[in-house]
């Protein structure tokens, strides 16, 4: 039975790599693409930081690892420590209760580093903008290199964003 199950993964389910077809995303990515390619080659270590998301964004980031998207084939890896990371993938409106932890995570990440704000909340606070308890988006706290829109961004949108970032 183990064989059957292992084989079950074999007829490849993997999606073709999506094109970076969103002009706005492509434009944003162009600014960092050359530097990313030059400095990092085709390998990118990503550290995810939940800065107060509703956890919807995390579900779709998780999906990047499933057999359909299999993001590691592009050289992306999710790492456990900011000290191993090239990119911080930040979700959530940046709650004030998480602001210092986010800053400290950024400080612990060695340069060169990029910050990706993922999802409507990370972009500008999203549904929670204006609350006493949020900073209102990642850019209020850290320099942001790329914004991936969506609530939550689909795995395809995340892949497009990350691919664009890598160049």
């Amino acid at each position, binding site marked *: *039975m*183990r064989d*059957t*199950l*292992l084989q*079950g*993964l074999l007829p490849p*389910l993997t999606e073709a790599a999506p094109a970076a077809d969103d002009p706005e995303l492509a434009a944003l990515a162009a600014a960092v693409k050359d530097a990313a390619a030059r400095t990092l080659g085709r390998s990118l270590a990503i550290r*995810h*930081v*939940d*800065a*107060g*998301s*509703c*956890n*919807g*964004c*995390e*579900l*779709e*980031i*998780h*999906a990047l*690892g*499933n*057999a*359909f998207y299999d993001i590691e084939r592009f050289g992306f890896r*999710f790492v*456990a*420590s*900011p000290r191993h990371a090239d990119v911080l993938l930040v979700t*959530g*409106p940046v*709650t*004030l*209760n*998480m*602001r*210092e*932890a986010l800053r400290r*995570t950024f400080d612990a990440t060695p340069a060169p580093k990029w910050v990706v704000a993922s999802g409507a909340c990370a972009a500008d606070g999203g*549904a*929670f903008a*204006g*609350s*006493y*308890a*949020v900073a209102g988006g990642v850019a209020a706290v850290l320099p942001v290199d790329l914004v991936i829109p969506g*609530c*939550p961004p*689909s795995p395809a949108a995340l892949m497009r964003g990350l691919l664009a970032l890598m160049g």
Partner: protein
Amino acid sequence: MTSRLLSGEADWFDAGRRMAAGEASLVSLWGDEGRMRLCLREADGGLAVVDMAVDRGAFPSIAALHAPASRLERAACDLYGFLALGAPDGRRWLDHGRWPLRHPLGRRAPHDGAADPYAFLEARGPGVHQIPVGPVHAGIIEPGHFRFHAGGEAVVRLEERLGYTHKGIDALMRGANLARGAELAGRVSGDSTVAYAVAFARAAEAALGADAPPRAHWLRGIMAEMERLANHFGDIGAICNDAAFALMLAHCGILRERTLRAAKTAFGHRLMMDVVVPGGAAVDLAPDGIAAIRALVAEARSTFPKLVRLYDNTASLQERTVGTGVLAADLASRFGAGGVVGRASARDVDARRDHAYPPYDALTFAVPTRKAGDVDARIWVRILEVGESLDLIETMLARLPDGPVRRALAPGGGPGEGWALVEGFRGDVFAHLRLAADGTIARCHLRDPSWLQWPLLEAAIEGNIVADFPLCNKSFNGSYSGVDL
């Protein structure tokens, strides 16, 4: 649902005492203007809401009588600036001192945003040491702080500190219209967006004395079961992965992805966010939706049983899950824990059956329970619930009534109050809504099932090795955002 509204000091104390004696269980406790409110579930399943006037800023603590109320009470005090007289734990819960103000829902007072110190409970003994973890964790998960006291490998005490994802949802709700309220409710805990949207919509419909059209109820049911499937597939895979059995994650990940894709085809959004609205559903099932959902059910029926056999036949995996993270039945019952966590510790509760709301009032299904209370039992309850959800989805598709999916709600239909208890994948979501005369939201309280489950994780982990914490935590799968609000 039978429901009663009581008020006064005698009822308040009586409620606390009866919950402490196990004659009733706590559903929720929250603040409102000038009063504290609690909802309890009677032994016969009926709900009662009890009010207690806040006198000179203070009210008698319920946590002093019934410990499961403690965190809810601390949260209410943070938000309103009330004092819980006699409370066993006076530390702030949601308010970490980082906001520019205190008491955002009560008499606001400016604050300099300097973090408050937080005194963790202590554990002493030879060789006992502390391990602080979080709020930023090593994986793709929500933030929270876990303070372990360990003696060698074994956990002597775990204390959770949450609140990091506090977004101020209760304050954003105040003055909002129902459409905005539904948007916020669907973002309290994204993995349960359907359950929250249904709970909010049902509370709003109850407050306005309105009802959604029959077809909308059935579509809500289909969406709720698809949400359960997606989360259970994800959790079963992720728990096994935390026991280093990645194959299960790979296969369950495929089923989860197929569920989300069917949801996208049928309802236009992978997580089905913003589809359920007060008055019904924002969209009808897409023309190719039925075929997509049927294909999902067929695939799950052919693949999932093989995965269950794999789980059942892999001794090295069972070695990690059986007997690990045991939650005693009496503790689960004392906290009134719902969902998988409660049912895996012998609690026979399910809001779909016990508070039979449409479409479940017209459906039959089993509510699986287990007695062992360990990680294995929590996996098994999920496995069995997958089977029930697949049956339910098939039945609902076959019996789906025709007709409109949305009924316009009278604008400015307040004032009024309504509440609802809805079974999400994690347990019962409670929504209590108070509308102002102009129909806007005066107070919306949403209680995630995790409020009554998180404290039990502290008990379940005791005596286990620190390295088994991720496994135990994942098997509970509490929502951080759901309780931080």
